């Protein structure tokens, strides 16, 4: 009797624990980043820009001076939190696409603190708590649908993103609207804002909150029984059940925790990112895509809280530097190109999956070649006879 190869592992987490290239995950992420930049360069070249100069502008803008660093970190801060949302649920074996909606709900909930006044520090804390609670609340319906009715969390969270988005727009226009400027919501009062920590930039103390949350999530996942149960259930739900772990509870918990971090991302965006301190109700330019970008950050950060910190800095840098690249003298590369680079990085991250498919493709091509060759040889033989 031969022992079957041990493959019992959640498909979702395959890429987290094992890399196809056999490289350390960190190197694989770096490789994906490089490939993404390369594809971006190729596209810029095709469209007649100078990729070299564009990238110099981008990286100078992102990490060239203290202003660049500050602005990169500021842009990365909310991404840390939305990436955590995705990662916590992935570690629990679920695919939570709902960070976007949960983040928006968290943001609008944070706006409500403009309705009352409190001493400055406490006001901030209350805002964070409200935002976290709102984000968690927005994630609870998909979680309940999942464990009671078996509804795929992928579908339900995407739907809840749209419900959340339009609910926030409606609230922004009709309920929490700024009485003087109808295009935006109420403004977070000064007492509740995160203080700017580098003068003249938009980097606020919210980054400490985000890093702190990432560290807390790390400790929860790897150093508490709660996190142990979540990870066990994510890797092998059957064994977890055998181990006395209540899988439904860990699912709800992961969703709530994820929702709370997404809510905090929303709070960080409205309470800790100058200059607006409000939501612009049409299109919500300062919120949109922060949840989805978080998923990319989570992927590059290998769904590990510490990895996410670095990945968020990188993506924040792309965003911050991209704005510089846009206005760089004779070589104005549109900001969209930065999003192309981001997309290319995400694609490069999924290449390992494609490599798995590749041997099959290669084999079938070889088969066809062989068959044609044989047919030709036979035809030649017949002719000679």
């Amino acid at each position, binding site marked *: *009797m031969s*022992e079957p190869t041990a493959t019992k592992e959640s498909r979702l987490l395959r890429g987290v624990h094992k890399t196809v290239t056999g490289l350390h995950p960190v190197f694989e992420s770096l490789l994906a980043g490089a490939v993404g930049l390369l594809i971006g360069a190729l596209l810029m070249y095709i469209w007649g820009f100078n990729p070299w100069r564009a990238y110099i502008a981008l990286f100078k803008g992102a990490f060239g001076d203290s202003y660049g660093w500050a602005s990169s970190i500021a842009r990365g801060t909310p991404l840390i939190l939305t990436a955590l949302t995705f990662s916590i649920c992935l570690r629990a074996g679920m695919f939570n696409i709902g960070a976007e909606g949960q983040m928006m709900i968290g943001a609008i909930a944070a706006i409500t603190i403009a309705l009352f006044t409190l001493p400055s520090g406490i006001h901030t804390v209350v805002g964070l708590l409200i935002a976290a609670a709102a984000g968690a609340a927005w994630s609870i319906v998909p979680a309940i649908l999942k464990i009671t009715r078996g509804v795929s969390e992928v579908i339900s969270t995407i739907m809840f993103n749209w419900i959340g988005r339009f609910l926030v727009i409606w609230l922004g226009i009709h309920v929490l609207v700024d009485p003087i400027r109808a295009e935006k919501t109420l403004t977070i009062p000064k007492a509740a804002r995160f203080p700017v920590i580098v003068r003249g930039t938009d980097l606020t103390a919210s980054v400490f909150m985000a890093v702190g949350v990432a560290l807390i999530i790390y400790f929860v996942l790897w150093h*508490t*029984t709660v996190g142990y149960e979540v990870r*066990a259930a994510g890797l092998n739900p059957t064994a977890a059940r055998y181990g006395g772990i209540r899988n439904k509870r860990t699912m709800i918990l992961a969703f709530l925790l994820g929702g709370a971090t997404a809510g905090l991302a929303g709070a960080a965006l409205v309470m800790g990112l100058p200059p607006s301190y409000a939501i612009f109700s049409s299109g919500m330019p300062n919120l949109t895509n922060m949840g989805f970008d978080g998923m990319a950050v989570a992927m590059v950060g290998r769904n590990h809280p510490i990895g996410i910190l670095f990945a968020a800095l990188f993506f924040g840098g792309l965003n911050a530097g991209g704005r510089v690249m846009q206005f760089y003298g004779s070589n104005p590369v549109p900001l969209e190109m930065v999003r192309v680079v981001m997309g290319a990085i995400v694609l490069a991250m999924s290449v390992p999956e494609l490599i798995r498919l590749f041997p099959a493709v290669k084999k079938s091509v070889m088969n066809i070649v062989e068959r044609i060759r044989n047919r030709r040889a036979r035809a030649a033989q017949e002719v000679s006879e």
Partner: protein
Amino acid sequence: MTSEKTAVSTERIKDSYFLRGENMTKIYSDGTVALKDASIEIHAHEIIGLLGENGAGKTTFTKILSGLLPPTSGRVVSPRGPVRFSSPREALDFGIGMVHQHFALVGPFTAAENVALSHERPFSRLQLSKANARLQALMEESGLRVPLDVPIEKLAVGEQQRVEILKVLSRDVDLLILDEPTSVLTPLEVDELFNLLRRLRGEGKSIILITHKLKEVQSVTDRVVVLRHGELVGDVPTESATTEQLAQLMVGQALETEARVVELSDKELPIKRERRAVNRTEMSVLHVEGLSARGDTGEAAVEDLTFDVYGGEIFGIAGVEGNGQSELVESLTGLRVPTAGVATIRGTNILGVDPRQIYKLGVAHIPEDRWELGLVLPFTLAENAILGVHQWKEFKGPLSFLRWGKINTHVRALMDRFEIRAAGPSAPAKSLSGGNQQKLIVGRELAKDPAIIVASQPTRGLDIGAAKYIRDLLVEMRDAGRAILLVSADLDEVLALADRIAIMYEGRFMTVCAPDDLDREQIGLLMGGVQRQEAPV
């Protein structure tokens, strides 16, 4: 053209073999030497028994031989030239078919559809009526009968195996490789299978039977090939070798101490048992009454079982797998909600209760499936060693922080006490060998200081050394007054260990008795569902 043809035919006469493996060596990328310089010749009209312990290289051997795995050195040749395939389909086209231990059948499809599936090329038109007719003819010809219009998943395991064999035969193979075909069959089905193999031999086919059961080798094969640690240590005509000789070849001359042979005979030869006087407790630890449960597909799996397990005894449940043993164990350990009945541990109900609560009553569960149930494979050894006991006060500090320091100390103690060989507490469970993984599970469960141990297939897939170690531990626990419910498909194991045995068939106990009350033939009949003719003495 003409001269070429005569050349081929003389070659056929000269090389009457079907396939020949020459100096095959296989070293896997991780450095494991699976096969060392093995050569073999396979002829038509013969049944070859491929014998060896776990990890002796049987599977690698057949995979290389059937061209599925390239050898590191050496080659496989047929009279038509060297052999190398890139898929089982190509091997089939050549005439080599393998029936795996785990069937490759599509559950909701019928037998006919499954057979048709193996014939069709991608994007070709499916011609079911043709496949049906072909299969009908083949069944007439081979005498293998299976219902054609019933989904595979509704068929018994023996029938599924027949479908697998039909599938391979329908491709008109010359070499049929069967990997442990009898492990899932009742004695009657085994006889049927062997008759079929003999018939196929008569038709000129070559058959390789992978097994570690000596009796099977003796009863059906013409030639025995023995592998040990990747080396081919014997290739002899069956009638010229005795069971004892084969057993010695299998475990090795160098290691041939009396203990080894006795261990082996425990498993294979007439059973030697030295049972202590039973010192079982007055009060039962586990009491089960009228328990019924359904299987995963809603079929009645356990029907109206009533029994007690006492402290200081091993209650063994024997039977062919799939007769409700798994469902019974799952019902008793909180993994399945039964449909009816009562089960208590020292008076406390355990049916439909959360596993966590059941463990608190002093239940240890050694699950039948290490990879699916017993371990979280990507987890480290330490993480796995606390699965199910992670809530213990010893391991859980304030704010539910895990006390990794204490856990690691505990794990090192486990590794020492249960001889778990691993790099350390932070080695991934995946990296451990099967035996060490099982020792980890057994160690974890015994460390709970349980009142009752539910052990399901505790030594399956383990080599003789690890199996003996775990059996000894179970006996030790029994002697310490613990109750043990042993469920095993390995009849010899149950007979050797248990103080009382039950034979389970289709969810019911055919009998409950002392192991000495029945001879093997009677047990075989009971396992196959045949009631005892005369009244029990």
